[in-house]
C-alpha cells in the first residue's frame, strides 16, 4: 500500500509538532493528526513556567537545552527570561529548599541562595515573611497560549500537513504499516508516533501496549491587569506555587493544585476547594495580590507514568511505532525532547539518550 506520508504523528501538542519539524528537516514527510486544535491540550493551557528550580535533577540537562530552545523561539511564544525566586516561609521549608536546590545546582542549574535582604531589595512586593530564598537567573516563562499559533506557522512554513479535529478512532497494523481510522477516512502510513499527552494510554493500548498513564489535573488562574507587583517568576519551596506577572499586567498563578475530572471523561474542572488555598498561597507570597480580581481559572491534564519520567522511544514489540510524552515538566523540555525523538526516528546519533519505554513502572496497577 502506498502512503502520502512517511509517518503519522498522533497528537499535535508541543512534542508532536517539534518532532514533526525535526523529521521534516531530516527529509521525512510527516503528517499530524490532532483530535482538537494544535497545542490546546496541556501544551497550551499550562502556566508556561520555565524554571530550572522546579525541574527534576535527572532531567536538568534536558531542561537546560529546553530553555535555550524556548529562548530562540522568542517573542513569538512570549518568552521572557526574568530570573526567578523560590521562597520558604518557615524552617521546614528552608531545609527543604536548601536540600532540593543544592541537588539541582549539582545537576547543572545555576541556582544560588540569596539573603532575605537582597530579596527585598530586588522584589519589594514579595512578603516579608520569607525566611529563605533561592534564585536562578535562567528562569522565566513563555506564553503557553501562543504555542498553537507558533507551531501552526512553523508547520505551514515547513510544508507539514496537520489535521485538526481529527481524532484517531482505531489503529490497525499489517506488520508493515498502520491504518489509522479517522471518522470516515482511513490513512495508511509506514511509521507511527503517538504523542497524545494525557490520551497516550488508550492509543498505546490500540497497539496492544499497556502504558500506565495517569493525568494530573493542574489548575491555573489569571488575574486582571494590575500595576507592577513583581518582576520575576516566583515559586515555593514545595514546588506548589508558580507565579508571574505578564507584560500586560495580568498575574498567572499555578503550582499544580488539582482540579477534578479525567482525560477519559472530557474536560477537567476547577475545584473551588483547591483553588482557594492555591490563591491564598499566592497572596501569602505577594500580599498586594489581595486587591486583584481573579478573571479565570482552568485546568490542564498533565500526563505522567508512575516514575514521572518521560516515555520516549519505540513501542516495545511493534515495529516502526514510537511514543513520546508523559513527563512532569513537559512544557520546558517538550521542544527539545521532540528534536531528540525526531533524531531517533531518523536513525541519527542522539545528543542525549531517550527514555526506555519498556521499563518497569513501580506502583503501576
Amino acid at each position, binding site marked *: 500500500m502506498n502512503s502520502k506520508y512517511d509517518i503519522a504523528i498522533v497528537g499535535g501538542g508541543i512534542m508532536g509538532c517539534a518532532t514533526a519539524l525535526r523529521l521534516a528537516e531530516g527529509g521525512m514527510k510527516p503528517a499530524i493528526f490532532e483530535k482538537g486544535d494544535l497545542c490546546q491540550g496541556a501544551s497550551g493551557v499550562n502556566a508556561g513556567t520555565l524554571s530550572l528550580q522546579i525541574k527534576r535533577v535527572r532531567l536538568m540537562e534536558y531542561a537546560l537545552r529546553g530553555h535555550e530552545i524556548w529562548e530562540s523561539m522568542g517573542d513569538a511564544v512570549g518568552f521572557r527570561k526574568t530570573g526567578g525566586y523560590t521562597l520558604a516561609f518557615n524552617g521546614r521549608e528552608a531545609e527543604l529548599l536548601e536540600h532540593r536546590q543544592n541537588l539541582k545546582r549539582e545537576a547543572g542549574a545555576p541556582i544560588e541562595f540569596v539573603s532575605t535582604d537582597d530579596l527585598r531589595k530586588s522584589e519589594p512586593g514579595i512578603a516579608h515573611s520569607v525566611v529563605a530564598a533561592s534564585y536562578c537567573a535562567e528562569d522565566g516563562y513563555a506564553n503557553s497560549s501562543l504555542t498553537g499559533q507558533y507551531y501552526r506557522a512553523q508547520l505551514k512554513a515547513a510544508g507539514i500537513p496537520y489535521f485538526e479535529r481529527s481524532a484517531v478512532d482505531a489503529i490497525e497494523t499489517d506488520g508493515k504499516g498502520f491504518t489509522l481510522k479517522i471518522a470516515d477516512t482511513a490513512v495508511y502510513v509506514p511509521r507511527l508516533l503517538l504523542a497524545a499527552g494525557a490520551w497516550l494510554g488508550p492509543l498505546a493500548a490500540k497497539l496492544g501496549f499497556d502504558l500506565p498513564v495517569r493525568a494530573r489535573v493542574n489548575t491555573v488562574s489569571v488575574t*486582571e*491587569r494590575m*500595576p507592577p507587583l513583581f518582576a520575576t517568576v516566583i515559586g515555593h519551596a514545595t514546588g506548589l506555587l508558580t507565579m508571574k506577572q505578564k507584560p*500586560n*499586567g495580568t498575574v498567572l498563578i499555578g503550582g499544580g493544585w488539582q482540579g477534578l475530572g479525567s482525560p477519559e471523561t472530557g474536560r477537567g474542572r476547577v475545584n473551588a476547594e483547591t483553588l482557594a488555598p492555591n490563591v491564598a498561597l499566592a497572596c501569602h507570597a505577594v500580599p498586594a495580590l489581595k*486587591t486583584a*480580581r481573579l478573571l479565570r481559572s482552568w485546568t490542564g491534564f498533565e500526563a505522567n507514568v508512575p516514575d514521572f519520567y518521560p516515555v520516549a522511544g519505540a513501542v516495545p514489540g511493534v515495529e516502526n511505532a514510537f511514543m513520546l510524552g508523559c513527563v512532569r515538566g513537559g512544557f520546558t523540555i517538550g521542544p527539545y525532547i521532540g528534536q531528540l525523538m525526531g533524531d531517533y526516528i531518523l536513525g541519527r546519533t542522539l545528543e542525549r539518550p531517550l527514555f526506555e519505554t519498556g521499563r518497569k513502572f513501580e506502583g503501576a496497577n
Partner: protein
Amino acid sequence: MTSASMPKRTDADLRFRFNGTEYSARPGETLAAALLRAGVPMLSEPASDARGAFCWMGWCQECRVRHEGRWVEACRLFVHDGLEAHGRRADDAG
C-alpha cells in the same frame, strides 16, 4: 421572605468625587448613573482609550473604576457620601 428595602430619598444629596472632581448623587444611585446624570458618560481618565458604561448589568466590565484600591463595576457601586473613585488610566486600560 426577607429582602433589602429601597433606600429612602432624603433631601440631602450625597457628595462624591470622581477623577478628582466633585459631583452629587441621589440616595440609591449608582456611581455610573450619577455620573451619567451629571453629563459624564466617559469613565476612563482623559487621554486613555475612551470608554464608559455599556451593559448596565455588571457583566461587560467597561464601567470598572478604581475604588478603595480595587476595580469595581460603577454600574453596581452605590454612591455613599464621600465616595472617591478613579477611572481607568491609559497605562491600565484594556
